């Protein structure tokens, strides 16, 4: 399978990855090779087969809805790129 430049540009945008033209072209050729490898599974007849999402057939555990973690705001914000008055700073999103 061969991907188009538009396909790769769209995927890069969805994945929030900035890529220039040269990078898009390099990605296009490498991803096309990988999808050729992946294409091998398209011919397999999987009618009636249940999809397998996990190795063990167990159901998800639930827990009581109560606070289990203590507040560690200072420890967590000490490693943040930019904070002020206990808030994470990002560029302005609303005028």
């Amino acid at each position, binding site marked *: 399978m061969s991907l188009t430049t538009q396909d790769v540009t769209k995927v890069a945008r969805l994945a929030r990855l*900035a890529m220039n033209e040269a990078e898009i072209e390099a990605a296009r050729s490498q991803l096309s090779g990988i999808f050729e490898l992946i294409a091998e599974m398209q011919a397999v007849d999987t009618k009636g087969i249940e999809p*397998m999402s996990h190795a063990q057939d167990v159901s998800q555990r639930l827990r009581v809805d109560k606070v289990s973690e203590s507040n*560690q705001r200072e420890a967590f914000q000490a490693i943040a790129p930019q904070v002020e008055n206990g808030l994470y700073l990002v*560029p302005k999103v609303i005028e």
Partner: protein
Amino acid sequence: MFESSLRQQGDALRAKKISSVELTQLYLDRIAALNPRLNAFITLNQDMSLAQAHKADARLASGQGDLLTGIPIAQKDIFCAKGWLTTCGSKMLHNFVSPYDAHIISQFNNAGAVNLGKTNMDEFAMGSSNETSHYGTVKNPWDTSRVPGGSSGGSAATVAARLCAAATGTDTGGSIRQPAALCGISGLKPTYGLVSRYGMIAFASSLDQAGPMARSAEDLALLLNTMVGFDERDSTSLQREVEDYACNLNKPLSGLRIGLPKEFFADGLDNDVAQAVETAIAEYKNLGATIIDITLPNSRLSVPVYYVLAPAEASSNLSRFDGVRYGYRAPEYTDLADMYEKSRSQGFGEEVKRRIMIGTYVLSHGYYDAYYLQAQKIRRLIAQDFTEAYKHCDVIMGPTSPSTAFKLGEKGDDPVQMYLSDIYTIAVNLAGLPGMSIPCGFGENNMPVGLQIIGNYFDEARMLNVAHQYQLATDWHNRVPQGLQGNE
């Protein structure tokens, strides 16, 4: 002392023949002398390691020493350890000093083990050669012009070079077993769900599993006993009765049924690897095992299935890295979207971006059924092959990797060639089964060959028994790379 087993080190510590501080310093000195040629560690912190060693010595002095108390263990840099830089091999986490401990780090701390340092790895565990690490490639101790395998290449190299007696690894598609094979050490990936994933930086959550890497099966059993256990903070952690993985080590192997899948000995397997594996199988016959021919017809599809499922899960897991709460943020940007895009583009390496792109594509509108759902259905067929096979045998054996360690840079330009080096290990992750690799000889250029042992679900004690009996009869696991035997 740096050549002795975990049990010997533990005995010496409890008998006060050596202190934990002395043992830790011995390894730190050895690392300082020999690591520059291997690059097996990303972070060393002598002060923190020695502080833990002092605590261990106090515990040993009070007679409260456990089997691992005072023993230095190298931790893969994918495990969050409080106060330690935890990079996962990525520029994205170049400044991430973890504020908390992963579950297995707590388990080792509770046992009184010493964190010797954080080992180098492929970025976010995506790679089979350690060449995707932001912190430089790890070199194979047997030949520094060759790769150590990946992604747990730093852990494998450091054990092989005797820079520590034991290390931890993680295995999503072969990342413990393949580097163990390429570096001539023993490594075990447990049944999915046995070891908590809490604090282990996520790659593909339905496949990721942590496990021990050491010289012998006996040492692996000791480490596994410490690593397993139910943890409510991991939603896929399994609640099971405590088991002693060392309890079966000494059982004789007479009557053992070994399944050999014909698909693991077909085209694509190098002759030198095939020869070493066949010699190992012959040794097992001497030990009383019977050989059964089996087939895993869908295993040929494991690489394509894996390269849909693992990138899909990775693209979701890695969406958290956005430059807001921790990790790398681009120095310049115009608005919020630009900040996300630039931080991610500059913070992630090429292979990680490639896998995020594959994952984003297969999960995108219109492609989900054809790729993701189809891959999940074939995943079940692959798992069913194993269930069928285990009706006829107790363990499955074959090569861990189709070749011995390749040259640095040899597969750098071709991701597909790199992906195919995990052809014998991936099916095990897809099925969620336990698998291990032990050294079974040398191939061309005197590079180590690994024998893969695949067990049924929760059959780790039997696998370790099978490996231990082989290691009693052979000495491949005791071989040390040239130039690393002494303290030069």
